[in-house]
């Protein structure tokens, strides 16, 4: 009896312990969970949340809308995937989404993509060799913001090439009075601005990081010239000293503070300038990307949906994503972003908003860009190379460690080979 009692006590306590542990892992299977990007324009998250909650109420499902800062998304998703509990839907940048495409974690969305009238640019930017896993939400066309008043004061014409931009910057630059001509972020925080700028310059100078067949072709005189050019912008003090470590917010903050003359950004800042700083807005002009000997290239990304196969509610998630593109809601949402987003659905640009010359410029830019990994095949490896910011690291080595540019380029080539498994 005594022994039996002891065994019973032990068994009961063990059951309580184990029950507590395992119960916590299976509690939220029936929820529709979306991880949305925290956007620069606050109205987005309010509208998206309302839309999601409305959808959940109409379909009788419990929903959870979670806002995740872009810089934290990858880490959180890794943990969720390993824990076997990923969200159903994630909103993220396309270069981030493409990294998950090769993991076998995502649900095929070809049915959504064929059922909705996506424009060709939207289809291009969401294409991935690994499969149809990405639904574009909006294009994020970049533009070159330039302080027209500073150029006018100096009596300069607007630059059209990278070389002209550097020449002008040397004249405009005034660090003694806390004004730097250029505000290009070159930190490795994981955002896309710095790597995008490096790729734009490399391509413009005639360099090709990875060719159309997937061969690593970065180690060329053209890329070397491009890396030396980018490094010179920091070594000559044309950018603020800390810009070499700025994240993607660094240039926004500096431009808004009036302390830099040129930045490269999406339309997010433009809409904020219009409302928050009309004077600076009036003194700002948006120019096309600078050109080099090989032309002008504007790496263009997009925001997109991905649906996790293991999320548990794939069908409901697909229904939500499909209904998200209801024309009235979608048109209004994109317009609310104030030019920062450009539509990916045919007919969504049929609104007076897009006839405004400023907004039509962003719309035109969204149709003329190249993928972030251009001209390489679009797959998880080439996007991982973009996401790891390998070109940014090469520039940092030259500027911060004083490394010989050719040595930095050799190491850049090794990085590409490592990531692409060459």
């Amino acid at each position, binding site marked *: 009896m005594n022994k039996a009692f002891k065994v019973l006590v032990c068994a009961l306590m063990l059951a309580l312990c184990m029950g507590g542990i395992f119960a916590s892992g299976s509690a939220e299977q029936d929820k529709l969970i979306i991880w949305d990007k925290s956007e620069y324009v606050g109205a987005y998250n309010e509208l998206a949340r309302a839309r999601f909650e409305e959808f959940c109420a109409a379909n009788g499902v419990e929903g959870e809308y979670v806002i995740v800062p872009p810089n934290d998304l990858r880490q959180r998703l890794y943990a969720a995937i390993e824990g076997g509990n990923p969200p159903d839907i994630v909103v993220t940048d396309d270069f981030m989404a493409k990294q998950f495409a090769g993991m076998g974690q995502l649900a095929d969305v070809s049915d959504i993509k064929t059922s909705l009238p996506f424009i060709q640019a939207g289809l291009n930017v969401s294409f991935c060799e690994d499969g149809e896993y990405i639904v574009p939400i909006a294009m994020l066309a970049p533009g070159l913001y330039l302080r027209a008043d500073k150029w006018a004061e100096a009596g300069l014409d607007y630059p059209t090439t990278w070389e002209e931009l550097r020449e002008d910057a040397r004249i405009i630059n005034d660090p003694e009075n806390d004004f730097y001509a250029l505000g290009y972020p070159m930190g490795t925080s994981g955002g896309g601005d710095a790597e995008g700028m490096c790729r734009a310059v490399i391509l413009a100078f005639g360099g090709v990081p990875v060719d159309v067949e997937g061969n690593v072709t970065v180690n060329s005189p053209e890329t070397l010239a491009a890396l030396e050019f980018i490094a010179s912008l920091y070594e000559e003090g044309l950018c603020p000293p*800390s810009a070499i470590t700025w994240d993607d917010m660094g240039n926004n903050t500096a431009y808004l503070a009036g302390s830099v003359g040129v930045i490269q950004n999406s339309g997010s800042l433009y809409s904020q300038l219009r409302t928050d700083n009309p004077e600076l807005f009036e003194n700002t002009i948006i120019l096309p990307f600078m050109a080099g000997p090989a032309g002008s290239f504007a790496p263009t990304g997009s925001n997109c949906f991905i649906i996790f196969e293991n999320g548990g509610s794939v069908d409901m998630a697909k229904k939500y994503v499909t209904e998200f593109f209801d024309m009235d809601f979608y048109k209004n949402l994109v317009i609310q972003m104030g030019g920062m987003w450009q539509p990916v659905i045919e007919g969504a640009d049929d609104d007076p908003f897009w006839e405004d010359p400023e907004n039509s410029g962003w719309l035109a830019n969204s149709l003329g860009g190249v993928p972030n990994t251009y001209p390489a095949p679009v797959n998880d490896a080439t996007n991982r190379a973009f996401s790891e910011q390998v070109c940014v690291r090469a520039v940092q080595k030259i500027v911060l460690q004083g490394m010989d540019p050719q040595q930095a380029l050799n190491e850049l080539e090794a990085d590409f080979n490592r990531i692409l498994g060459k």
Partner: protein
Amino acid sequence: MGHEASIFRTERKLGLAFTLPIFILIFLLMGFPFAYTIYLSLTNKTVGMPATFVGLANYISIFTDPTYWRIVGNTVIYTVICIVVKLVLGMLFALLLNEKFHGRAITRVAMLLPWAIPGMVAANTWKWMYNDQYGIINEILRDLHLISTPIPWLGSMNLALFSVIIVNIWRGVPFFLFSILGALQSIDDQLYDAGKIDGANVFQRFFNITLPSIMPVVAISTLLSTIWTFNDFDNIWLITGGGPLNASSVIATYTYEQAFMYNDMARGMAVAVSVVPVLLILMVLVMKHRSTNE
């Protein structure tokens, strides 16, 4: 005698039976993740993919990588400088606050603030203060005409580690201060009176009465703080992200970078496990010290 031994054996078994679930729970919560981490470090694990055993390949890879040894060096520099300065400053402030003066209570509360402020808030505040264009540190240095161009506190290979060390010291001094202050207040005043009667000067009283009396507290505080500082993550990650080019990266941030930024879980785990022996030695010292005191 035989009956007593039987009761002892029965009670011992019963005690074991009652504590067994707790042991199992502790193993599940602490031992299993630790063992799993070691296992992962011996595989080629990446997120979303099954792990394949690769033996010591990850350890060979990190031990032959100069970057790893640079990170180890950073970790040692960070830990040693932080601990030494925190200990010295904590001791000085504790001695000061042990004296009676007007405003002592307010000063004590003020000294506790850096430790009480959430790490996220403190790190972001310092990050803003370090900003080369708008930060208050450069602003003051400029106003004092000590610099003409801004210093990139977080963007320089030479200054980034130094900058995060300052923040760790700022946050960690109160722990030493209040630990030592508590020990100081427990010293019997009669010892000092006897010292004075015997003609001992201030320094003699400090080295022969104060220091031996507070040494157990100093030792345990130093050991605990060494473990915390060695494992410090949020302070560095939030301020510099370990950059630029790993100039301010330590083992904790490098592990995170490898595992979560580069999706090389196995290598990240190998980096983490590689320093476990150091931490084990520190933990053994703490436990030994505790058992000696008990």
